[in-house]
């Protein structure tokens, strides 16, 4: 159990059967009054925001959350299937749950799947992933303007800006937090 004085940004608690993450937190205490803990929380399943003020004697259950390493197998009809590499158990998440991660997800990639009880609710990818460039305009030699970039498409269909020397068939490293190009990868 957590008490209100444990509340802080990023803490995960369980309210009315849902896991919530604290997104904003402020301690307040009106003069001669009691301590108040003002929070904004996000429901980790529905995405709904909850704005709530708690008192110091309020208690919270810990959210029953667990991360498991799983391998991405395939996607079909907007369902993304993963397998636990030790138990071989298979589960799937919806496109909505996978969110922007879909831009960086390729077959056999190992990811962390977040479970709430038995229910998979979210995935997190490695910070850096290496993806193959499937479509790029050729590099015009002699173009010396070092600051220029050009758009390329990677194997997931994601389009991003890269330096002009990146060519079709090459591999690049992308930061999955920002979706930005990091460096060229030599095979």
């Amino acid at each position, binding site marked *: 159990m957590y008490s209100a*004085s444990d509340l802080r940004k990023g803490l995960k608690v369980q309210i009315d059967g849902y896991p919530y993450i604290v997104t904003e937190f*402020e*301690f*307040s*205490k*009106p*003069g*001669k*009054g*009691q*301590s*108040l803990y*003002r929070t904004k929380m996000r429901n980790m399943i529905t995405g709904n925001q909850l704005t709530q*003020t708690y008192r*110091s004697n309020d208690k919270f259950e810990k959210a029953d959350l667990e991360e498991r390493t799983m391998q991405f197998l395939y996607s079909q009809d907007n369902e993304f299937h993963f397998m636990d590499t030790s138990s071989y158990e298979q589960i799937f998440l919806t496109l909505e749950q996978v969110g922007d991660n879909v831009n960086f997800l390729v077959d056999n990639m190992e990811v962390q799947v977040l479970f709430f009880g038995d229910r998979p609710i979210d995935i997190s990818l490695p910070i850096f992933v290496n993806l193959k460039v499937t479509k790029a305009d050729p590099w015009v030699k002699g173009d010396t303007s070092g600051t220029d970039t050009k758009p390329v498409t990677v194997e997931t269909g994601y389009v991003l800006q890269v330096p002009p020397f990146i060519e079709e068939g090459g591999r690049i490293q992308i930061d999955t937090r920002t979706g930005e190009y990091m460096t060229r990868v030599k095979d």
Partner: protein
Amino acid sequence: MISPRCLAQRSSLLQAVRSFFIARRYLEVDTPARLPVLLPESYILPFTSEGWFLQTSPELCMKRLLARGCPQLFQICHCFRRQELGRYHQPEFTMLEWYHTGWSYLELMAECEDLVRELAGGAESLAGVCGPATLRRDGQRISLAPPWERLTVEAAFLRFAGMPVREALDRDCFDELMVTAVEPHLGRDKPVFLYDYPAERAALARRKKENDAVAERFELYIAGIELANGFSELVNPAEQRQRFAAEISRRRKAGEPPVLMPERFLDDLGRLDETAGIALGLDRLFMVLLGAETVADVVSFAGDDL
């Protein structure tokens, strides 16, 4: 973490506070920080020290000195309150407290205006001050020109919370409404004194003669931030004993750590004439004057820096 420049400005401001009170014939005192008994008040949690307590305010000792015949006192000291940590709270903080015999809370409000204006108008250019007698905070200008706004707690609740104070107390949501609905509006164009608190929220203040449901207590707000709490002191030992007894019994019922009746304080209180006193959070005032975001930015060391 505080910058050397801010530390120098804090030092100048501390000197300016002392000069202000010494010029007005106040006596500076430094009373013990470690006490065997505290004034029984709700919602303030003390640190213990070998069976004694670290002071949560210097009120107890200062009132005892007033009763011994010192008519005007001020003190700058560290106070300690458990479990108070946030943008505007540190468990150890610097308090400025002053008392003036013969005054009521009305004269103290006026003196509070003088003090803040003098500090803002000093020679140094402070980041939170823009132009003569004007503060800058949250992108807004706050005029310090007198008189500052005076607003009763009842009027503020009706205006900003849409509910009379009595109803807020009965519904047990007075503090929540104060923090979420009322405070954010206070002191945005000019500082405001919120005054005449419900008597149950002023354990050490005198009740108003015309209306004993409220006590002569005020709070100073600038830019939604509570800076000072003052009142016409309750100097009737029998009534004060009753209020302490009610708090002691509330604590016993709630299973909170027991506290003792401050007998020597009550003995001395009988010799106290009409007096007004005020406690001002110096770190918060310096934060506003120095244009800092948090109190941790204007103290030499915040707790997480030690």
